[in-house]
């Protein structure tokens, strides 16, 4: 009885993990950067205005994520070079448990 229960639990856990993995591999994860999907779906002749609006949205979203994640603990630093920011954000991802999506948006915001 106990063995059956363990086996069933294992199978259910395996199925759930594989489902999640498949979802992530297909880019179906909800924490994938939204601008990537939006850019792919955009028609080739998208107007310059739309692109500017999208860029502005990404900027605002990045600023919002920066304020909610980083500014809770410390003052806003100056903007460093993109390569330095990539290291800083990786460090803070570990230290402050920042999500993958937030990390990318913050990196983009801090390197614009």
């Amino acid at each position, binding site marked *: 009885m*106990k*063995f059956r229960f*363990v*086996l069933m*639990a*294992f199978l259910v*856990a*395996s199925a759930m*993990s*594989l489902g*999640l*993995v498949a979802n*992530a*591999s297909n880019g179906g*994860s*909800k*924490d994938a950067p939204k601008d990537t999907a939006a850019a792919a779906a955009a028609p080739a002749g998208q107007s310059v205005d739309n692109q500017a609006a999208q860029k502005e949205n990404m900027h605002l979203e990045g600023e*919002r*994520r920066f*304020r*909610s*994640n980083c*500014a*809770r*603990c*410390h*003052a*806003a*630093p*100056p903007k*460093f*070079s*993109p*390569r*330095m*920011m*990539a*290291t*800083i*954000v*990786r*460090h803070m*991802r*570990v*230290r*402050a*448990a*920042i*999500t*993958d*999506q*937030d990390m*990318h948006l913050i*990196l983009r915001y801090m*390197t614009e």
Partner: protein
Amino acid sequence: MMCRFVLWPRIVAKAGLLGLFFVFSLAVQAQDDGFKAVPILTGSTAYFTRVTAGQYQDAPSVSPLLLLPLGDKWLIEVKGSYSETFTKDPEDNYFENKASYGMPYGQIDYVANRYMTLVAGRFTTPFNIYGERLAPNWIRALQTNPLTSPVTSGSALGGMVRGGFPTTDNLNLTYALYFSSNNTHHLLATDRSTGGRIGFFLPRQRLEIGASFQQVLQADRPHSSGIFFEWQSDRAPVTVRSEYARSSGTKGSGYWIESVYRLSQITPLRRLELVGRGEQFFAASRLSAATIKKLGALGKDTNEADFGMNYYLRSDIRASASYGRQFVLGRNANLWTIGMTYRFLMPMLPQGGAR
């Protein structure tokens, strides 16, 4: 034979979980940032003058942090600390100079996937939030440590699994699980212990709440538990944070609550922030006189209130001053602090500024 038969479902379950862990890590790859990370040297220097119950001290310090990224997924982090404390006697003569140094953490991180990072080496124990996030002197709002800081082991030597991911549009789940081995080196001492932390972060409300647990696996095997919250208003530049920690052993329990108000709405004072913190510590009951002496500050009930201000000359240079009143049975004391902190950051390669 019988014993093996009884145990093997448990072994299968453990092996299955381990297998899932590896499949999960390998299948979901971390995303490339598009920028090649460069090694950097960062950290902070500080000079503080403290007057604690009439005892005058000058304390310059430096805490360098080397960040060495390897590829897209690896990061080596090594932080050192060095400080000198010059103590003055009532006749205004410096009579003692004590140097202290150490390595708060030296760890290697592997970003396994977007949900999980593996950490190995010496790292800060993930218990509540003060030690990991707020302790650097250029970040902390008040330079005095909370009374609850020594309740748990500050550092660990071993491995850790941690991460954070969104569960809904407005809820991020963060977690950390670790184990640590015993190390008796006089500078790098750690306890054999295990524990973890779970946090729930609501980005829109800028509210995070969570809980921590630590089980020491040596000596008296005490366990500690804690809860924390941090909230920042989006209408006013106010941050409120608090921690509670309790130990089952001789180290007692306590809590602190801190509020930080940045006067950014008043133009001439926009670089100034005001800080207040209240805290209570309750020593464990039925302690022997010898244990109380050994525990020091953790051996007595203590109440403390601190008020301070920080002025940002630049985003990386800050002047700080604070006053606190500590209430301990038979020995109340004033705590004055004034000083400056500087946070430095530089690339370790000449092309650090290039893409």
